[in-house]
């Protein structure tokens, strides 16, 4: 049984111009110990799927699926209270903007302690020990001194490390990283990706990387789903996807990478669309 299994997921948003289909019948499944990358451009519905699964979409969204199960637990029929027991503990998420995801009014130590208190019932000295342990695990120098630091006193890379520490605080079985390194410098990106992959391998959790960056996919993923305008274009293991892409859109995406440029001009996705690719 896969860790997370979603069948035929559809998400529609009510807009002033009528319903807008953000996702149109996409299947996902992730096993423990596996890194799945969902890759696509803006508007491809790559984030919407995971937000729908976690119940984080606004009321204007209509979500339907034939199956949506986490470890056999049906997420569709779960009440809000029951869902909260799973989300944040068993499934956790990291977002793109580390500085915006942390509360500027509270210290890093307090915010980490909060999730331990809510989900694990840890308080006082025990919580503090665990927070220090977590900050050490994500490679923050002088973790004890950093407990009382506010987010604005840390760099973007360090804030993202704190977010990761928070996400793995309750040893989740599934970690979803939504564009975790987009706002960071290349050198910091490398450190954060290495950290995520190492944590994933040590703990054996499932990891879903949502990204638009083919480089990030190449560096982290085991399996890849390529999405375009709310539909799945291709699903393959990472090596076959880069070596021998089947779908016209995937081919277009790969050939638009500047490092794959042959000749003077970069092929663009619309060149392929005009050629009747998809």
């Amino acid at each position, binding site marked *: 049984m896969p860790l997370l299994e979603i069948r035929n997921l559809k998400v529609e948003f009510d807009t002033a111009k009528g319903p807008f289909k953000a996702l149109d019948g996409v299947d996902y499944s992730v096993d423990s110990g596996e890194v799945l990358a969902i890759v696509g*451009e*803006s508007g491809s519905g790559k984030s919407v799927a995971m937000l729908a699964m976690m119940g984080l979409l606004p009321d204007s969204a209509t979500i339907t699926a034939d199956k949506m199960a986490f470890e056999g637990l049906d997420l569709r029929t779960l009440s809000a209270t029951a869902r909260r027991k799973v989300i944040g503990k068993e499934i956790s998420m990291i977002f793109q903007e580390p500085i915006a995801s942390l509360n500027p009014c509270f210290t890093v130590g307090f915010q980490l302690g909060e999730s331990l208190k809510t989900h694990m019932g840890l308080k006082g000295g025990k919580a503090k020990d665990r927070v220090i342990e977590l900050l050490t695990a994500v490679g923050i120098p002088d973790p004890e001194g950093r407990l009382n630091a506010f987010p604005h006193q840390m760099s*973007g890379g360090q804030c993202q490390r704190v977010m990761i520490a928070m996400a793995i605080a309750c040893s989740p079985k599934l970690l979803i990283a939504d564009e975790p390194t987009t706002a960071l*410098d*290349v*050198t*910091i*990106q*490398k450190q954060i*990706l290495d950290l995520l992959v190492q944590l994933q*391998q040590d703990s054996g959790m499932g990891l879903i990387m949502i990204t*638009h*960056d*083919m*480089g*990030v*996919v*190449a*560096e982290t993923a085991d399996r890849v789903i390529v999405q375009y305008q709310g539909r799945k274009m291709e699903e393959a293991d*990472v*090596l076959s996807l*880069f*070596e021998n892409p089947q779908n016209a859109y995937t081919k*277009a*995406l*790969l050939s*638009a*990478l*500047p*490092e*794959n*440029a042959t000749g*003077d*001009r*970069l*092929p*663009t*996705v*619309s060149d392929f669309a005009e050629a009747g690719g998809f």
Partner: protein
Amino acid sequence: MSDDVILKVRDVYRTYDISGGLFRKASQLTAVKGVSLDVERGTTLAVVGESGCGKSTLARMLSMIDAQSSGSIEIDGLPIDISRTGISKEMRQKVQIVFQNPYGSLNPRQKIGHVLEEPLLLNTDMSAAERRDLALQMLEKVGLQPEHYGRYPHMFSGGQRQRIAIARAIMMKPKLLVLDEPVSALDLSVQAQILNLLADLQEEMNLTYVFISHDLSVVRYIADKVMVMYFGEVVEYGTRDEVFENPQHDYTKTLFAATPKADVESIRKRLAAKAA
């Protein structure tokens, strides 16, 4: 060709005063420390570095938004020192800039036609009809339609907005275009379109680019020369092939090592290391 240097920068510094407070003494921050460079007409210089390395400060000085604290900048034979001489219309026509965020750099209440005509209105004596003609020509040149003239920025996608920002920048027919991370906010396929557009315009108008970026794969594709900055200093400066094939400075090597590799060989190597 090699003596046709359009941009000449010698030993430029920029310091900012950081005001003091109750618990902090006033101090100075030097964002750019002694940068010198030459760019030849019709070529592209890429400036690479991480956030805070001074690359955008350099861009602001080259495009006359900020004055240098010391050192000399010469653009197309014209010495630039705006803190002493101010900016003349002649200087303004030489350089234009395109910013990273196409959403933030267009006024949401200004129609595209007016966006494009504004530089002409301010810097030339053209009549309204002439300005309109030029704006329509420019729309076509950057791959937009004449009917886009009367629309507002929110009606365009990110890639189209970046086309508008580029069109606005070349309205004055500048000699030098400073591009501050022009494709960082765009999707991969749109990025390819904009890079192609920039290449076409460079050829057509014999433009010179200073291209600021942190994305090495883009730099490798577009640049003739590459300059790597680290904490305000130039740590590496040479032709693209020299820098990419034989990086000298430790920071450049770190930068290259950190850049994700999307070729099949590297993926195979990673998977093998993981399986072991």
